């Protein structure tokens, strides 16, 4: 009898707890999400920017044709869902991508959304329209698109020069919103109009950005929040203290460093914090067009001298990843297997042996204990650049290279790199999409504007095209691994590590998903709600 009562009590408790979970899990409408912003974005136009400082506050204003599922941390081809498109289909042997568009969608100013808006947006991105963006940093994403054709108001097709399955991944990025035809690029920089879950209210430079709920949003019942307010706080200490003091519900995404994360948790143990990779690789750009790094032996010696684990331990207390160009697994989808990675010179675990080999190469090039090579290590004057540059200089000492830190203001960094006015540079490369097409073509293809080192290998370039057209994922992965390995062996742009960063929010904030293989795609915020 006692056991029956105990069972009944347990069942009752279970039911109670289940109902509590259900009640807690039921999304509530209302509330303003308060977040700090790390800096004042230059403008509000996502297409003209190349920093997630623009994506975070303005992605909620827009919709894409398709989008990565916002509640899945890992972006992949299998979790791309329709947004302004209702469905899509590859036809014409993979050379045409056709979208059926959602009906009844309105822009925030009340005008109807049609296929003409899609054509306008992508024609402008391809540089084929009368109106121009002031800047168009992702024009190369559409190199394989021949043209855009519309079929009535509700169908649009991307006609490609050759099959490119990854086009869908590029279209699902937070960097690929659809813009309205009837609003000029200039107006989109100051007062963006979208179809998204939140409407733009105001943007006061260096002060705040305010968004309000789009009550006419096509997805019924969304968004849950009444609005989002970003207060621009450039001082990181002030921002973190304000979060701890309850002035904000959430930190700026992926902006909390590992040491700061400890501070947050010690001062506000109730804060929910996650640490995720953000697909930003810290790497070395090498000027191989001038002495001394025109010597392949010295380049190889430098790659062999790297102790990547030391970087990770010092800067991230062990919480960062070592890999090639593509983001390491498990968050990254295209990373080389560990044994393949460790077979690349400089990646093996025996740092001492690597450096011994490096010293021999340096001696072959005419340097040694009595004759050191003096180099300048240039980098931007920002801590995330400067700190690893200092460690790099220290590590290069072990192979007779005396490095001198050359910090460069942001305004002068790219002109300096473009002039090839550097020997070694410490650089960060963020990938908007975890896809080889974006990474390889942008950073390593001959003539690409973001190929800072002008690395050009026609054989590899052919392989870029082969992998790009491959529809079998397993086959494509093998091709990508081989390319990535070759890029590292060529010391094209040696990757040191892939960072991990933190995001924190108060426990009453629900429905936040921090993406693990891109820091550009997860800010629609239509599923976020507050349990208050």
């Amino acid at each position: 009898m006692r056991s029956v009562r105990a069972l009944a009590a347990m069942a009752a408790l279970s039911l109670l707890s289940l109902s509590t979970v259900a009640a807690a899990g039921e999304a509530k409408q209302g509330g303003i999400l308060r977040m700090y912003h790390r800096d004042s974005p230059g403008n509000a136009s996502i297409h003209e920017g190349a920093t997630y400082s623009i994506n975070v506050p303005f992605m909620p204003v827009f919709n894409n044709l398709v989008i990565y599922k916002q509640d899945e941390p890992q972006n992949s081809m299998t979790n791309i869902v329709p947004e302004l498109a209702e469905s899509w289909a590859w036809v014409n042997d993979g050379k045409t991508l056709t979208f059926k568009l959602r009906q009844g969608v309105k822009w925030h100013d009340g005008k109807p959304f049609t296929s003409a808006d899609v054509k306008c947006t992508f024609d402008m991105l391809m540089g084929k329209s009368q109106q121009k963006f002031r800047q168009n940093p992702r024009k190369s994403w559409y190199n394989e698109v021949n043209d855009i054709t519309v079929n009535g108001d509700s169908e649009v097709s991307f006609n490609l020069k050759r099959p490119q399955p990854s086009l869908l991944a590029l279209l699902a990025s937070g960097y690929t919103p659809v813009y309205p035809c009837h609003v000029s690029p200039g107006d989109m920089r100051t007062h963006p109009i979208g179809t998204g879950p939140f409407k733009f209210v105001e943007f006061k430079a260096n002060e705040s950005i305010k968004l309000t709920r789009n009550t006419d949003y096509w997805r019924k019942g969304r968004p849950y929040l009444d609005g989002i307010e970003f207060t621009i706080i450039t001082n990181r200490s002030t921002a973190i203290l304000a979060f701890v003091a309850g002035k904000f519900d959430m930190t700026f995404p992926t902006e909390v460093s590992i040491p700061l994360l400890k501070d947050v948790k010690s001062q506000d143990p109730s804060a929910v914090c996650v640490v995720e990779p953000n697909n930003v690789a810290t790497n070395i750009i090498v000027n191989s067009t001038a002495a001394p790094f025109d010597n392949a032996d010295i380049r190889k010696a430098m790659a062999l001298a790297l102790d990547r684990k030391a970087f990770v331990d010092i800067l991230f207390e062990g919480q960062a990843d070592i890999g090639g160009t593509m983001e390491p697994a498990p968050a990254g989808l295209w990373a080389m297997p560990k044994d393949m990675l460790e077979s690349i010179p400089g990646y093996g675990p025996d740092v001492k042996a690597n450096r011994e080999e490096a010293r021999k190469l340096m001696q072959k090039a005419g340097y040694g204990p009595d004759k050191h090579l003096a180099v300048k290590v240039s980098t931007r004057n920002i801590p995330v650049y400067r700190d690893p540059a200092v460690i790099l200089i220290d590590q290069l000492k072990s192979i007779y290279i005396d490095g001198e830190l050359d910090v460069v203001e942001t305004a002068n960094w790219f002109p300096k790199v473009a002039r090839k006015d550097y020997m070694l540079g410490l650089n960060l490369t963020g990938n908007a999409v975890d896809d080889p097409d974006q990474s390889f073509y942008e950073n390593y293809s001959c003539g690409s504007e973001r190929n800072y080192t002008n690395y050009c290998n026609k054989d590899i370039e052919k392989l870029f095209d082969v992998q790009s057209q491959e529809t079998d994922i397993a086959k494509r992965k093998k091709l990508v691994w081989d390319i990535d390995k070759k890029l590292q062996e060529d010391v094209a742009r040696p990757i040191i590590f892939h960072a991990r960063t933190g995001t924190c929010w108060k426990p009453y904030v629900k429905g936040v998903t921090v993406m693990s293989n891109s820091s550009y795609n997860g800010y629609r915020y239509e599923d976020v709600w507050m349990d208050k």
Partner: protein
Amino acid sequence: MFAYLVRRLFLMLVTLFGISVVIFFLLRIVPGNIVDILFAAAGYVDPADKASLEKELGIDQPLIVQYWHWISGFLRGDFGYSYVSEKPALQEILPRIPITARLAGLALLFSASIGIPLGVISAVKQGSRLDYALRVVSLSGLSLPSFWLGLLILTASVAMFGQMPIFNPNPQTWLEAFATYAVPAAVVGFRSSALTMRITRSSMLEVLRQDYIRTARAKGASDAAVNYHHALKNAILPVITVIGIEAAFLIGGLIVTETVFNIPGVARFLVEAIRWRDYPIVQNLVMFIAVVVVFANFTVDMLYAVFDPRIRYTD
């Protein structure tokens, strides 16, 4: 007196013209412009897009032409557009001025109301424990950087009270508005008050040794009358000079304090504008600050005559 005023006004105009030339050309000497920064942020450089944007913003014109466009516009009251926000420069600058003016005013008030009395007390009680204690406080005021003091106050507020005195853009009451400015003003004013106190002390010590002070005491005047009526009135001139100079230097302290306390004033805005090479904002804002400083100096000179009847500006 009239001729002096005319001469001073002429000199002020010459000074302002000189400042306009210096700020204009200094900004152009600094490597990089807004277009470089925009492309740096985008991570690529397209020479055609770059040239087109430079033409759109007018920074492809010869420097003399650019200067003339700016200064003639400035004199007509046309301050141009911010390169970054693409809004009229005046619309960006004007709302921020009252914020910084309130902060600066309160900081100066804090500096004078704390620094002068403590300086007098320190001088009167020379050599006492109180004097030593006040001198240590003033030394700490001069030694502690305001960003550090600000962060310390913020950290302590969060740790002790779970609250944080950062800027509230919409204060509901007068008290809330005062609270918004009081802590940052105290942080800026603390350094300034230390300087004021030290100058007041040394000036008072010098005056207190004068014969007329001894005479006043011999005639039976009270300590308060001697210290505040006879001594302070004569010791105040160097203090006014220092406060005038401090008012000009305050902008430097405010840049840091506005950043730490996240106050959207002109000082922080100026730094951001310099970072972006937003020429219309920087040039107009610096000119505005220059006008304020030049007039502050002029006011200080006029105040000399008020406080010291021996000073008369003759023709």
